[in-house]
């Protein structure tokens, strides 16, 4: 029986985002969108989290932080890149300090494009990540 789908706990990290996507992530917790109806809890703690939600492109300063957060999360875990900056670097891709999208550092499972990503698409991304968590759980059991 799968319970990963029913209680995805998310950890939200702002790599170098302009806060546009962060506001939309928080907006999906508000009464209008209410992502908690799917059992989502916004934890601030990597040890409790199932899904790492990253906004903004990555740079030299945020790479070690992202790696550490990812390593601290228990298996099975999924990564969701929220916003066009996190998926490819967006308009900041050519900046001297920007490495590119999150996939330069971590294995990204779901890309949620948009500037800023809309709450509906963020919720959709989280639910897609739940399916991936489920597959990863099965793979862990098979090992």
């Amino acid at each position, binding site marked *: *029986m799968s*319970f*990963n789908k*029913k*209680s995805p*706990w998310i950890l939200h990290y702002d790599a170098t985002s302009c806060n546009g996507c962060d506001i939309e992530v928080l907006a999906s917790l508000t*009464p209008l969108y*209410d992502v*908690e*109806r*799917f*059992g989502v*809890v*916004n*934890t*601030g*703690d990597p*040890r*409790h989290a*199932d899904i790492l939600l990253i906004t903004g492109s990555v740079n030299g300063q945020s790479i070690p932080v992202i790696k550490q957060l990812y390593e*601290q999360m*228990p*298996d*099975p875990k999924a990564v969701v890149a929220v916003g066009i900056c996190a998926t490819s670097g967006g308009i900041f891709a050519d900046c001297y300090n920007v490495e590119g999208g999150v996939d330069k550092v971590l294995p990204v499972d779901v890309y949620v494009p948009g500037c800023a990503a809309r709450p509906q698409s963020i919720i959709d991304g989280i639910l897609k990540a739940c399916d991936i968590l489920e597959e990863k*759980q099965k793979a*862990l059991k098979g090992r």
Partner: protein
Amino acid sequence: MMLAVKILLIIIFTPLAGGLLTGFDRKISARLQGRQGPPVLQPFYDVLKLLQKETIEVNPSHRFYVYVSLMFIILTALIMLTGGDILLTIFVLTLGSIFFLLGGYASQSPYSVLGAERELLQMMAYEPMMFMTAAGLYYVSNTFFIRDIVNRKMPAIIYLPAIFVGFVFILTFKLRKSPFDLSLGHHAHQELVQGISTEYSGRSLAFIEITHWYETIIALGFVYIFFAADSIGTHILAVIVCLIVYLFEIILDNSTVRVKWQKALSLAWLVSGVLGTANLVVLSFFNF
């Protein structure tokens, strides 16, 4: 044989009831905030998910404390629900809380150590009232055994209204509800990360959650003792009062903000000191 069945039933049904209450808590909280909220069975989904997940251990003793804490809390539930000694119930409950606290210190993470220190302050705040409750119940019934306290002609609440109010006040600490959710609350996610449970993951975290379900029922069990007497009606009334008190705590949780530890401590001691002592003095004046 009867006792063994009873023990088994208590061990199985206490966390189920506690989990359901937590589920209703989340649903009602969501409705109070104008949201739809998670399903009522959400706490069970959470725990079953955590049981499947990888358990990361920070050091060897880390997990040990959580398991021992759960063991003592189960023992507390057994003593209380089989009608044992109320003093022993309070002592074993405290021991369980202390092992949980040591688990916070064991991980060496600054967040969980800070959480453990706040938990210690919370224990300082609520323990005097726990003993005041036991003393008051002894004063009116001349016995520490719960099965005798709930079998008297008149419910204890008639003699101990002020102590009951004081107990409901410290119940907020025990249930980890705002305004006194300093060390680890369900809404404290961003302030202290997750307090004592910061470094716990997977199975250990699931056990922390189950421990909290037991604690919820034990805390409401004390409310029950105040209202139960030898007639069936008072027992039904006691259950209804337990639910009303829990609903009150949910509404309080959603309408107040977390206070600083100085205020929590002084307020708790003031309330326990004034209400507890006044009630005991009045009782001794009428010489019950």
